[in-house]
């Protein structure tokens, strides 16, 4: 929803089950909803041989590559409608069918051509499209609507054009407008507060955020210097489109771990329970469990070095909240968000503190088992879910508590709507939360991680094998 910067819009979900419920009862996804503001700006996924790293794509694991449409964002839009745990359409042709009977069919045809939706759908199409994907009745068939070859081609074209239309919307100023305090500052129309200015300096200095969340500048000032230069980029996206394993702990709250038995339609989202490990980009490169097919066989070799890597999100709108709940941070009144791919972090203060102290307070425990006398997320960070490829740029940045707060201030300055109101941001009808502290926000909902079984063979025994092995 716009009021959450197109992050998860329901505070209680963000606080607890992390993954959002799908349209079929009791099904839910496995990761947080990645913000799609500015996602049309992400390039097609590629492997840079000089850098030795992947860049681009959409989604935490990069599985929306943009290979086919040359737009990762357009392909990202195509995933949720046919994802078994989201909208669960059983056939991509259902999108064409639903467009063909929609009120706005003329609008689609005005753009993509008269007759573009003239497809001879069989009489059982509506019934098929009402049956959620993954249902045993389909027997694994991804195209249960019986279309002629010509109509299948047309339906595929409609599906692709529909994805591109969504991407055009996301590229518009309704979604990605560059109207934050940071944008105003880059234009010279806004002077940072003292905390924001300090945060901006930390962002590209001691905090080293700028090494991944590129801010368009490279200037590092020494004490007493004044930056009088022109920014290298006046519309920075605050991401290098790159991937990193930050070493986050497994979050046992994630609803995905509990979808272990067949639902009413005979579909089991996660047969492995807590044997599942989220290897992110690594699993995608292997075309592994729960990921889309990797379109480039030459990339498979890079899977072991990519295990645990997740896409570096833009910081833009990470702090966006409904106007009536003006912050993400306790004591508020605040709007509860969730951060990173598994929603383990519940406030921006915790997020910055994690970057700053992950390696200062490490404990060889899982979440919910921090030693007595410590406080999880304050002076105890449980072990990483995927340790082998952890990024060591962060983890002990030697920032003070005040400096952490200043970095939070500059993250908040990246919220659109400062120079021009952000469209449709006032539709939240729920309650703000109050009380507590940002450092321990959400800790009351922590649960003890059960004893973890070994990583399931369907995840960790797929060649090329993870190195070192995933516990």
């Amino acid at each position, binding site marked *: 929803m716009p009021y959450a910067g197109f992050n998860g819009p329901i505070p209680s979900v963000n606080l607890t089950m992390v993954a959002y419920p799908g349209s079929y009862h009791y099904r839910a996804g496995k990761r947080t909803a990645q913000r799609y503001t500015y996602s049309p*700006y992400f390039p097609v996924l590629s492997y840079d041989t000089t850098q030795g*790293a992947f860049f681009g794509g959409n989604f935490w694991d990069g599985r929306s590559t943009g290979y086919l449409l040359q*737009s990762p964002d357009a392909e990202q839009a195509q995933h949720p409608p046919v994802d078994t745990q989201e909208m669960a359409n059983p056939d991509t042709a259902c999108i064409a069918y639903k467009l063909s009977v929609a009120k706005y069919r003329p609008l689609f045809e005005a753009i993509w051509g008269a007759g573009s939706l003239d497809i001879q759908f069989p009489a059982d199409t509506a019934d098929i499209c009402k049956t959620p994907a993954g249902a045993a009745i389909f027997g694994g068939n991804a195209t249960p609507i019986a279309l002629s070859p010509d109509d299948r081609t047309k339906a595929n074209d409609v599906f692709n054009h529909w994805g591109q239309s969504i991407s055009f919307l996301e590229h518009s100023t309704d979604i990605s407008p560059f109207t934050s305090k940071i944008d105003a500052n880059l234009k010279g129309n806004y002077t940072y507060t003292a905390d924001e200015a300090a945060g901006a300096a930390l962002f590209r200095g001691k905090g080293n955020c700028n*090494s991944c969340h*590129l801010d368009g500048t490279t200037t590092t000032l020494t004490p007493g210097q004044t930056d009088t230069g022109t920014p290298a980029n006046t519309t920075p996206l605050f991401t290098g489109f790159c991937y990193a394993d930050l070493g986050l702990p497994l979050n046992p709250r994630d609803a995905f771990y509990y979808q272990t038995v067949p639902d009413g339609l005979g579909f089991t989202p996660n047969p492995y329970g807590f044997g599942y490990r989220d290897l992110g980009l690594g699993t995608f490169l292997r075309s592994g469990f729960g990921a889309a097919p990797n379109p480039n066989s030459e990339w498979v070799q890079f899977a072991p070095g990519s295990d645990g890597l997740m896409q570096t999100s833009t910081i833009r709108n990470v702090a966006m909240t409904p106007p009536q709940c003006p912050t993400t941070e306790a004591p508020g009144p605040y709007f509860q968000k969730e951060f990173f791919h598994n929603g383990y972090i519940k406030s921006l203060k915790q997020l910055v503190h994690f970057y700053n102290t992950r390696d200062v307070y*490490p404990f060889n425990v899982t979440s919910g088992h921090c030693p007595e006398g410590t406080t999880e997320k304050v002076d105890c960070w449980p072990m990483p879910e995927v340790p082998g490829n952890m990024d*060591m740029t962060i983890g002990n940045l*030697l920032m003070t508590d005040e400096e952490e707060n200043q970095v939070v201030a500059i993250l908040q300055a990246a919220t659109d709507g400062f120079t021009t109101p952000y469209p449709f941001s006032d539709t939240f009808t729920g309650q703000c939360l109050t009380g507590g502290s940002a450092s321990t926000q959400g800790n009351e909902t922590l649960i003890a991680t059960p004893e973890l079984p070994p990583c399931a063979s369907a995840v960790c025994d797929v060649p090329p094998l993870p190195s070192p092995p995933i516990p």
Partner: protein
Amino acid sequence: MNKLTLKLSVTAMVGGLLCVSLAQMLSPTAKAQSVAIIQQPNLESAHDDAAILRWTTTTPRGSAEHFAVVQYGTNPNALTQTAKSHVRINSGHSDTIFRVRIDGLQPQTTYYYKVTSTGGDGTSDGVESDVNQFTTPPPGQRIMNYPQPK
């Protein structure tokens, strides 16, 4: 706007975006001609079975993706094991902190090591430390040489 015009617009727009994006993510920073260690490697922290080493060099520039690499072992003349960690280079910084995590260590054991760094493609930065050493603590104890400031 007819379909063809829209498609052409889309193609041009996407092409333009790619140019901007690629330029942004591949900042043209020439690799430094020489890299020097300006703070020698030492132990940042250690548990009975893991350690983090930390050192500072002049910024190598070149590829943003880098690896901090340590060769180590219990015999100073046979550093047979290797650990490496991802580190992102910030080309705007004059110096770069490298940190590497070593797992699978034995408690109360002295390890000898030397460090180096490479670009993301494995190309050496051409800098290597002398052989140094650290000792892991007993089970249940921790060493923290870089405590969190208040």
